[in-house]
């Protein structure tokens, strides 16, 4: 990115990219917690694979956010040296891996969203972002399909797996309100052609998600007034604990390179 491009960067543009980077980072961090502990070896490899994809996306996006910001912060400064309130990912990403059903449902709800978002971002007026989108889109296709297959297996499996999948869906569904909540950053980014306002994706997302949930014989919870505010930097109590673990080393050894 040349200096001209940087001076043209608006705060909304930067925040939009940062949000994408944070979402990949935090979701990847949660997925990586499974490594070595999954229900079956093949799924251990698949979860690690997805975690790797998200960490890779986070690296590209946070590096790029650092460039847009122009203050010399690299991917690691952004990943490890910010406070809870400075992260911009949707709250859904940070919720804990209560069990494999939570991980699967969460991965599917987010994965289906990512698929739509990256396909739209391939046409971004920001060429660097469009290039990241093209790469991430391929990964998102696999994530949505793989997690979707598991949603169906769990929902339409045994009584226990159905019960767990439904319980996870009931808990996680309200957090999807946030994905589509109106947000001034989105409006500015959309106006500049950087990317879609996430609220625009709600209809297509439901059209992608509902048939899979139906095939899984799961009941879609009614919408409630519940709102979460991760995109605005107000997170759940879980994020602080996640960051305490993730940031431990860089904060314990200030200035060290690894």
């Amino acid at each position, binding site marked *: 990115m040349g200096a001209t491009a940087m001076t043209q960067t608006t705060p909304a543009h930067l925040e939009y990219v940062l949000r994408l980077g944070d979402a990949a980072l935090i979701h990847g961090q949660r997925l990586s917690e499974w490594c070595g502990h999954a229900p079956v070896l093949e799924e251990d490899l698949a979860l690690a694979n997805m975690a790797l994809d998200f960490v890779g996306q986070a690296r590209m996006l946070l590096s790029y956010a650092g460039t847009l910001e122009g203050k010399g912060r690299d991917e690691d400064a952004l990943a490890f040296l910010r406070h809870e309130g400075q992260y911009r990912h949707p709250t859904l990403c940070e919720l804990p891996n209560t069990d494999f059903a939570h991980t699967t449902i969460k991965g599917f709800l987010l994965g289906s969203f990512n698929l739509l978002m990256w396909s739209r971002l391939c046409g971004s007026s920001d060429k660097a972002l469009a290039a990241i989108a093209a790469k991430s889109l391929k990964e998102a296709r696999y994530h949505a399909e793989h997690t979707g297959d598991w949603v169906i297996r769990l929902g339409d*499996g045994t009584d226990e797996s159905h019960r767990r999948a439904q319980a996870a869906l009931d808990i996680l569904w309200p957090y999807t309100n946030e994905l589509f909540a109106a947000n001034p950053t989105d409006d500015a980014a959309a106006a500049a052609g950087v990317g879609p306002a996430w609220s625009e994706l709600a209809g297509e997302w439901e059209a992608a998600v509902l048939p899979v949930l139906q095939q899984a014989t799961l009941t879609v919870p009614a919408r409630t007034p519940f709102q979460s505010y991760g995109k605005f930097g107000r997170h759940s109590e879980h994020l602080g604990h996640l960051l305490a673990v993730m940031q431990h080393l860089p904060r314990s050894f200030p200035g060290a390179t690894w």
Partner: protein
Amino acid sequence: MYTQALDIPPGEQPKRKPDAVENAAYQAEFDARIDAGATIEAKDWMPEAYRKTLVRQISQHAHSEIVGMLPEGNWISRAPSLKRKAILLAKVQDEGGHGLYLYAAAETLGVSRDELTEALLSGKAKYSSIFNYPTLNWADVGVIGWLVDGAAIMNQIPLCKCSYGPYARAMVRVCKEESFHQRQGYDALLAMMSGTDAQRELVQDAVNRWWWPSLMMFGPHDADSPNSGQSMRWGIKRISNDDLRQKFVDATVKQAEVLGVTLPDDELKWNEARGHYDFAAIDWDEFWNVVNGHGQCNVDRLAARVKAWDDGAWVREAAVAHAEKQAAREKAAA
């Protein structure tokens, strides 16, 4: 993909000549092939003791890959940079992949992965004792790559030419990735050694703890390895424990110098007459204590595997139940 892991009736088993019969003619043919350096394949006749030895060795090896995911996995969520996090995740994932190829190689010998898993979880089967040591600081990840993967490579390169084809082929693939792990581990240590004093202290601390256990990875002295002779005869083992250990020490001393760490052995010095490094006596009591279940992490490692397996039971059952429902629906529709 997942169905391989589940206790679904196996497909066609490899056709093998009647193996219950220790037929003298088959035995002579087998011996001749071993002597000629030919590989034995799953469909070939083999002595029952050869088959059993292979099942034991390959399954222990597979279990070691799987349990070996735990000590380094301990640091994934705390990796100090995104690049190191990605490298470590990929490495631990590779180890899981090694477990997968090795279970598949063992399955060619007529055992199922579920049986082998059961043996691991019940404590009947062994895995490499090195994984019963704790990973206490970030440098442990680099040191494991450098020394533990390094020792594993020394042990495994000869296995790429072992007499049993499926095992030998699995090892070719595994060894390539292990070399990569070793270089990445060493590279992580180089980065730390050119960093701050505090980082260098972490590396030295990790080297102090992992050096001796790494030497123990080659197993007891040749004089105390009663089964080695037979394994050599069968072409399962090609180089003795002590020779491999010496090779490892000779190769590692230089690397330690370049890195700038001290190996924790006052007696380590070049012996001109032997053309090798001499090193101090290994504490075999410690080795056997850990093998026999009294290491710092034996209980935790096994508990972690049991927990993953037990917590995952409903997921595996769901996959089977769904596959059965699907099959029934397809049949009804046909």
